[in-house]
């Protein structure tokens, strides 16, 4: 019985990143109600990049693809757009994982910043050129800035979570 419970706990812990991903796409953690004018970040980018890099088996590509479709529907962006961005982010993380022998938070962070800069530019170009959609530059820059900054904080939290779940 005890063994079964332990197995179940382990299984549930494994699913936490996936649950977090779906919660974050269905309910953007943006803290809008605090009334901060220039504050927004993309939690899904941080989550996907971190877990694709550190624990690639936690988030399946298919689930990430589906989460992207949900995100598009909730945010009102063209369907398939977020999936594409998420999967590119996974690609960058997978490439980094393959070429890196000794990992460091700083290197991961630089790669993450480069990746989200490219992804957001790509998003902006596609949405502006092909979908006649207006996006505020300032909001996007603020979003990129805080997403990149908060990567450091969230990666430390995730590291702690991963370590403690491994210890169990």
């Amino acid at each position, binding site marked *: 019985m005890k063994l079964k419970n332990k197995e179940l706990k382990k299984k549930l812990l494994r699913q936490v990143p996936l649950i977090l991903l779906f919660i974050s796409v269905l*309910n953007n953690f943006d803290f809008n109600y605090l009334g901060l004018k220039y504050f927004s970040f993309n939690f899904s980018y941080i989550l996907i990049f971190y877990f694709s890099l550190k624990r*690639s088996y936690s988030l399946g590509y298919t689930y990430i693809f589906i989460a992207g479709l949900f995100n598009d529907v909730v945010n009102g962006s063209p369907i398939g757009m977020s999936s594409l961005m998420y999967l590119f982010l996974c690609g960058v993380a997978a490439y980094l994982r393959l070429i890196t022998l000794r990992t460091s938070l700083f290197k991961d962070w630089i790669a993450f910043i480069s990746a989200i800069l490219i992804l957001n530019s790509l998003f902006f170009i596609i949405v502006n050129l092909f979908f006649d959609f207006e996006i505020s530059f300032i909001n996007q820059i603020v979003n990129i800035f805080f997403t990149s900054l908060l990567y450091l904080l969230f990666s430390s939290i995730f590291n702690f979570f991963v370590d403690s779940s491994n210890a169990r």
Partner: protein
Amino acid sequence: METSRDDFVIAIRSAFLKKQNQQRFSLFGLIVFSLLILILGGFNFKPVNYLKLAIKEIAYRSTFIVSVPEKFLEEKYQTAQDHINLYNASMRNELELKDLRAKDLLNDFLVLENQRLKMIVEDYLVESDRLYAKVLSDKNSPFLKSVIINKGSKHGINLGAVVKDKEYLIGKIIEVNYTTSRVLLLSDINSKIPILIEPQGLLSILSGSGDKDGEIQYNKVENIIEETSIAYTSGVGNLFKAGIPVGKITKNDIRSLNAKVEFFSDFSQLKFVEVLFFERKISE
């Protein structure tokens, strides 16, 4: 040199083409699939539209459930804020109430007179139907300022229907699903509505700023707009009924050339909204 290029190709191939443990599809396959959906969606391909509709029905309902904890936190935060500001707000409201009671007496007479005159010139839209809807989700993402409500085509909602919060305009319906709809808020950068600035009587266009407020565009005589001016819907083009209050003019942002409009309704606090339908009434 040759070796490092080979390494790069191998790493890229491995990252994008290789299926990992428990993965059904490769990354490359899913990227191609996303691109396909994106392109076909751009051309309004029917199966993609059906897929979109199905996901919308699931996602909007799930969003409502998933956002319950955050909404609870938000409510608690607002309650705390209200308590802190209670005394000042009460004093301000008392003064305002006295002023409004005096104005209200005159207002009833003016409304009736205005209706009678508008009917004579056959330019009077009357409310034909009204629905109350619950806000399921308020997605104030940096890219879209919109809310999702729990009424859709099943309840008779049409595209372009006017959405109000109490007496104030907040936006219009831009997407109708079977049981849900999306309301584009006035603060969205893509929202453009014809307004009338009173008491100057200026016609203009109000555009969302992508933030909390709006900007007045295409206004040649900007200098005569005062900070006490109020923006109402003008009714031009019969998009909205004329005279719905929108917001008051503020010019506090000196970096902006356009005058700003502070909306009467707080879009972050929407819980229930009114969806209105109008039809033209001609005097007999």
